């Protein structure tokens, strides 16, 4: 996705071809896309935008459903804040860091200045060859931006101080995500090396996942989670809410991946719908097999993670792999995510919602899968990309979390954690009038 301007021209070559084939009106097709095509492309990109927007509700529901009732207000507050902070900071600096036009430090860093400016042609057919306007470009990208920080939110839930989390989020979403993004989608060094990440298995999900890992390490586990050498299961409090979350994320993914085509190209967008849906479905089946096999009973939360695993897995290559490969990628992601959740728990890394397993583990898998299932892409280059994003994101997240910890502390007090962050941080209950146990 993303108008890493070089690649978008390549991408649209296929569209151009189509124009040529549609002989009768080739006459004016030579002169660029029609205003009709501009309008339909742009309309599709705006539809994709609102679909990505609704993913933030998906994250809020999934994260709160998978944690305890006493921390629900806090989680909802974080998720509402993250999208808001993300949109505003992306308008001020993020967009221009991610798509700097010209890089100032190698192909690693560039900045096109503060604030938004469509310029003279920003909202004409000239801006992106009739694919979308400048405003559309910005708002579609902006909806993506907060995602990375929201992924972190799930992993550090139920124990992180609100203020400290918001400070981390602001820095991560305003600076780290867009700088990392510029390397590929902004046309930076990884793009030039041939690294491929269609819609962000690495650029969005792994970047979020590495941040989650850093946070989990620095925060430590929830009270009692690994007491006396035993692993204590802490059950999520609202399975319908978690399920709503996952379906909304799946829904949003039609925009996340479908919009990353960056036009309404009938063939590509519909192919992406098919690969995305089938990978998600296969992810459910993979996780069902693994969880029914490993645990004695099939675990709902595992198949929910499984569908997301399939989605994250297909995200890097949704437009370049075959439909059969998509199912295989999804199914394997479903198997992997179950193993990863169990492994990470055994490693005493406390990730209440499985964010690291879904977004980091399967983000890596999906990115590498492009090198395996697409003849046009190199496994080694994919591996270099994965590693580069890993080193940068993890280090950046670690440093920010570390700094925040030094400045203000990361964890709430023991009593607050025990009675819940809702009362502690917000003075509210999520379910006033319900009798809660424990």
């Amino acid at each position, binding site marked *: 996705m993303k108008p890493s301007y070089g690649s978008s021209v390549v991408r649209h070559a296929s569209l151009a071809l189509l124009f040529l084939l549609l002989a009768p009106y080739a006459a004016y097709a030579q002169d660029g896309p029609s205003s009709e095509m501009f309008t339909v492309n742009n309309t599709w990109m705006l539809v994709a935008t609102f679909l990505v927007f609704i993913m933030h509700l998906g994250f809020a529901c999934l994260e709160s459903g998978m944690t305890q009732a006493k921390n629900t207000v806090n989680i909802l507050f974080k998720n509402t804040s993250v999208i808001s902070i993300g949109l505003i900071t992306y308008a001020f600096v993020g967009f221009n860091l991610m798509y700097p036009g010209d890089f100032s430090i190698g192909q690693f860093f560039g900045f096109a200045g503060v604030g938004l400016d469509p310029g003279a042609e920003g909202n004409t057919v000239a801006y992106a060859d009739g694919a979308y306007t400048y405003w559309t470009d910005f708002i579609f990208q902006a909806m993506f931006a907060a995602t990375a920080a929201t992924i972190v939110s799930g992993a550090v839930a139920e124990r992180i101080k609100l203020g400290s989390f918001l400070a981390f989020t602001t820095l991560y979403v305003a600076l780290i995500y867009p700088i990392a993004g510029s390397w590929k989608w902004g046309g930076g060094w990884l793009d030039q090396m041939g690294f491929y990440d269609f819609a962000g298995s690495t650029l969005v999900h792994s970047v979020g996942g590495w941040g989650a890992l850093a946070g989990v390490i620095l925060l430590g586990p929830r009270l009692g989670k690994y007491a006396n050498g035993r*692993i*204590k*299961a802490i*059950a999520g409090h609202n399975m319908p809410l978690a399920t709503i979350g996952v379906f909304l994320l799946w829904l949003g993914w039609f925009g996340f991946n479908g919009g990353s085509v960056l036009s309404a190209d009938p063939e590509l967008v519909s192919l992406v719908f098919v690969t995305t849906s089938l990978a998600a479905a296969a992810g459910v089946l993979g996780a069902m097999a693994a969880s029914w096999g*490993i*645990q*004695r*009973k099939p*675990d709902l*939360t*595992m198949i929910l993670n499984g569908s997301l695993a399939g989605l994250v897995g297909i995200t890097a290559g949704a437009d370049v792999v075959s439909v059969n490969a998509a199912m295989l990628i999804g199914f394997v992601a479903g198997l992997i995510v*179950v193993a990863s*959740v*169990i492994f990470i*728990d055994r490693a005493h890394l406390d990730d209440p919602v*499985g964010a690291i397993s879904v977004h980091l583990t399967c983000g890596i898998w999906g990115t590498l899968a492009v090198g395996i299932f697409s003849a046009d892409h190199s496994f080694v280059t994919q591996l270099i990309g994965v590693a580069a994003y890993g080193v940068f994101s993890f280090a950046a997240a670690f440093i920010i979390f570390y700094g925040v910890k030094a400045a203000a502390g990361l964890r709430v007090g023991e009593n607050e954690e025990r009675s819940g962050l809702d009362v502690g941080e917000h003075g509210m209950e999520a379910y006033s009038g319900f009798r809660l146990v424990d």
Partner: protein
Amino acid sequence: MNQEGDGDMKLITAIIKPHMLDEVRNALSKSGVQGLTVTEVRGFGRQKGHTEIYRGAEYSVDFVPKIKVEVVVDDEQVESLVATIGDSARTGEIGDGKIFVSDMGEAVRIRTGEAGVAAL
């Protein structure tokens, strides 16, 4: 407080399986009991909880849901009501529960101020 009330009453407390509540209530109603109070409780006893796996980690549910039925009755009814409760709450399986009996010194009906057995 009125005198006759003193020491004439007993509190019967039964811990039963939740799905037997209707039977017990019906049986008590038929035996003439006019009021009782029910509380959801959790029990720990010979009937053990169970172990489950959630996201790969084991956890044990130590407590079993139970219903506590409390009824204050005239001394004379105690024996027959304990039998009534026992019969109606019995499934024959472990965890059927217990019936406890203790003294109740006084009872007052808030609305009227009546006291003793008359208040029940």
